[in-house]
């Protein structure tokens, strides 16, 4: 599995997404990560291990605790993945913009109005 597939499958789980969301606000211990969930620390540790293997989270032993934090760049790499697909569509829409300019011009009244309509417009 390449890096992005690993990251995406790691983020496919709602609990793991919540863990990542929590870690965007700063490093946390397994205890702290487990708090909002009705889950054992062991279950949370498994999720963290999954995120660690996917390269999203790094874990560091401090005394008896494990401190977890986001690996810098991991989330940005996922964002870039979607950003490129967005750019593909943006370039498509830019070609559509050019087509629409023509269609709007065809649908509008002629650019050089007759003397009558011109003088009307000036009076208005």
């Amino acid at each position, binding site marked *: 599995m390449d890096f992005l597939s690993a990251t995406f499958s790691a983020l496919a789980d709602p609990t793991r997404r919540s863990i990542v969301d929590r870690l965007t606000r700063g490093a946390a211990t397994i205890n702290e990560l487990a708090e909002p969930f009705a889950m054992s620390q062991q279950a949370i540790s498994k999720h963290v291990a999954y995120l660690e293997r996917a390269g999203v989270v790094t874990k560091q032993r401090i005394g008896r605790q494990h401190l977890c934090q986001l690996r810098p760049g991991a989330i940005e790499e996922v964002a870039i993945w979607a950003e490129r697909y967005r750019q593909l569509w943006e370039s498509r829409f830019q070609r559509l913009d050019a087509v*629409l300019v023509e269609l709007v011009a065809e*649908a509008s009244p002629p650019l050089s109005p007759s003397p009558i309509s011109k003088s009307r417009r000036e009076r208005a």
Partner: protein
Amino acid sequence: MTTQPTDQLGTQITAAPGTQEVVISRVLNAPREIVFRAYTDPVLLARWLGPREYELIVERFEPWSGGSYRYFNVDANGNRYAFSGVCHDVSAPERIIQTFEFEGLPERGHVSLDTALFEALPDGRTRVTTKSVFQSVADRDAMIASGMEWGVRESYERLSELLPELLAQ
């Protein structure tokens, strides 16, 4: 996640990890009747839908409820990449619901259901929102990954267009 462009007119995309959906939204500077025409007239569609470096050839295009379509992207070496689907519902000028399949995958049947909504905005502009629902998260991710390849290619193209300028400076 949602990627927000800096430009107000720019394309927005939402593709939350682990879901089967991609939502793409863009504001276009034309009334929706005209935008709808650009989506349902095959000659007009061919001018904008394909990737920039490919020619788009429409084999069949029946933009009405129960109709179907098939078109090819043709690259510089003449390789053809076919896409096809069925128009489930075409309600001018506000909605198109259709299936979409890239025929070049190793196995057939990886179809998405695409709904395009055309919303009239003040000042004669139109917001187009397309939601694609894939049969699996893997299918959705593969589609975005294929877009990534195109995106990279187009980025390189833009770069190579820019290089002479940069070199001249």
